[in-house]
């Protein structure tokens, strides 16, 4: 990442921290509503970050936007901000424009649509085309985390050819990046707690058993972050990159959530403690847009069909930074 990018990232992190506070997340969970978070985030000007410059956007690459998507996950943002960024760019590239106030989710087939509870619009598959539709209702929010088990579609505003863009891939790729962010929040909270909480006369973090668990947790978090970064390092989302990222994120969630809650003890699961805001969302993401077995199967099949001489060749061709 270059310096410009890290300035961008730092300012976005401060902004999101101010807007999407844990208190607001709790209010949202009680009654999902776009405001006040949506308008404040929209005012930041990042919604058109991925829209090409000649269409009036910032023309940033997916790679530049990756840290921003992670930050949304880090702060449990439960409105479809990252999804709307991608949707607006796709629409703009096809000469279409989303309504200014549309909060758009990507809605490929999935048991649950995180960030769907308060969405106003969706991109859906429609045969060979992708359609932008208005939502007239959403399904249940079984995690109380701003998700929706389904959507009820109203007007169809426009459509575009689906060639070259796979809604399921984009949704899973963005999910992996937001999961990576939520995991880094769990890690930083667990480290802080381990250093503060005293048991048997010393901080938890001084116990070797705890240290080793937190080291494993850090490994898993960084592995997911690197995989999610690779998935967003090309011109678009590709199957291998997304498959590795989502499979990795889902698999790591078991360990990462487990260790975070083990270090915190029961307090971590309480309403008043923030930890559960992120861990419940991670579990919701596990159910969305393909499980670890689903994506691992895709990746394995691709490896077998690709016929690469070695797995190192396969990774270089399909799974390294910038692989198309």
């Amino acid at each position, binding site marked *: 990442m270059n310096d410009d990018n890290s300035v961008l990232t730092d300012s976005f992190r401060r902004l999101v921290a101010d807007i999407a506070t844990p208190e607001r997340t709790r209010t949202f969970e009680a009654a999902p509503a776009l405001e006040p978070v949506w308008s404040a985030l929209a005012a930041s000007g990042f919604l058109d970050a991925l829209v090409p410059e000649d269409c009036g956007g910032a023309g940033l690459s997916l790679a530049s936007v990756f840290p921003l998507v992670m930050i949304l996950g880090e702060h449990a943002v439960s409105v479809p901000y990252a999804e709307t960024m991608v949707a607006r760019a796709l629409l703009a590239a096809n000469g279409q424009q989303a309504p200014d106030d549309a909060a758009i989710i990507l809605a490929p087939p999935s048991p649950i649509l995180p960030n769907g509870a308060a969405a106003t619009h969706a991109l859906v598959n429609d045969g060979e085309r992708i359609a932008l539709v208005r939502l007239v209702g959403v399904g249940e929010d079984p995690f109380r985390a701003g998700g929706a088990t389904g959507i009820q579609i109203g007007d169809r505003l426009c459509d575009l050819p689906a060639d070259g863009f796979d809604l399921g891939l984009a949704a899973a790729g963005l999910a992996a990046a937001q999961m990576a962010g939520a995991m880094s929040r769990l890690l930083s909270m667990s480290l802080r707690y381990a250093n503060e909480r005293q048991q048997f006369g010393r901080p938890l973090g001084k116990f070797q058993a705890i240290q080793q668990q937190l080291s494993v947790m850090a490994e898993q978090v960084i592995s997911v972050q690197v995989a999610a970064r690779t998935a967003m390092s090309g011109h678009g989302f590709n199957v291998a990159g997304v498959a590795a990222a989502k499979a990795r994120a889902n698999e790591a969630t078991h360990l990462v959530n487990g260790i975070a809650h083990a270090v915190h003890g029961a307090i971590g699961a309480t309403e008043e403690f923030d930890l559960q805001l992120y861990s419940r969302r991670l579990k919701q993401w596990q159910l969305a847009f393909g499980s670890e077995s689903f994506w691992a199967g895709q990746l394995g099949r691709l490896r*077998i069909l690709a016929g690469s001489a070695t797995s190192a060749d396969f990774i270089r061709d399909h*799974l390294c930074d910038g692989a198309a």
Partner: protein
Amino acid sequence: MLTVDSFPATRIPEAAEALRPQIKAFLADRLAGMPASRRARTWSGFDADFSRALAERGWVGLTMPKHYGGAGLDAFARFVLVEELLAAGAPIAAHWIGDRQSAPLLLHYGTEAQRQAFLPRICRAEIFFCIGMSEPNAGSDLASVRTRAVREADGWRLNGQKIWTTYAHKSHYMIGLVRTSGTPEDRQKGLSQFLIDLSLPGVTVRPIRLGTGDTDFNEVFFDNVLLPDDALVGQEGNGWAQVNAELAFERSGPERIYSSLVLLDLWAATLRASPSRADEERLGKLLARLAPLRAMSVSMTGLLAQGQSPLTEAALFKDMGTELEQAIPGEIADAVATRLDTACDPELMRTLAYLMQLNHVFSLRGGTREILRGMIARGLGLR
């Protein structure tokens, strides 16, 4: 703190990638007909002729300056070379330690005379090196070494014992970490590194036979060995710092993720005929773990090339990498033994058996899991 930003997104430069096709062509020719069960040994496979053939191409000591007999290429070129050697299962143990550690150590800390005496011979694969760190009472607790070198009028008098020294019986020199002052209670202080000629009087190398029948490891005894003055590498008493500088090189490379790659690819090839959904998922999960690790290794190659020493990052990478290398034989065993009515390909069985009997040591060599996790914990601010 350790974060994803500790591993900056890094691409291998074109110039380094340009080397890849030549290496592939050389290996395809040279390794033709070598069975997978032998190729699976990769950096444990000792073949002096192979190392010399590589050296003739200029591929030993790739990063050494040209005036010392090297190719003067960068760390990324070496990553490409090593990645291809490991993926193909080339037997590279003979020159491996000299190439990876001893030559860079001598280039960095050696005297001009030492560089001129040793680097060209390493680059020609004429001399092979081993590492003398572990002792019977100093394994993970490396700072407690007891082997001692005492200064005398005409050099250093060396007494003590090293253990688990890989290929000492086929090496010409050892880079040994020994005590030059104080006692084991002084820990990191008073340690120094020496270039030990293993043909000197008083050096005894005794092989350690493993349950598998392999004899890669040795005990090395030093009984009043007289080392010349110029056997000291770097500064007297600076051994600990010098060894730590080597560790980032030792733990960050693709050999920490590819030790079971020949097996993985052999198995993947058998799936082409009749892949089951479960096999595809198993293969995919392993690749999903492997890909970010490769990205991390490339990233650390860039950091090392910039002169940084990503020690904690390397510990994190190696712990995860060896865990994956260890998981691969287990996963494949599970897959193979799920198909009870299908005969296992004999070469797949031989390769699997070799790695299943070896994989538990992957996390012992080069720093144990528990030590690495302790280092990570320190990097996370817990210690």
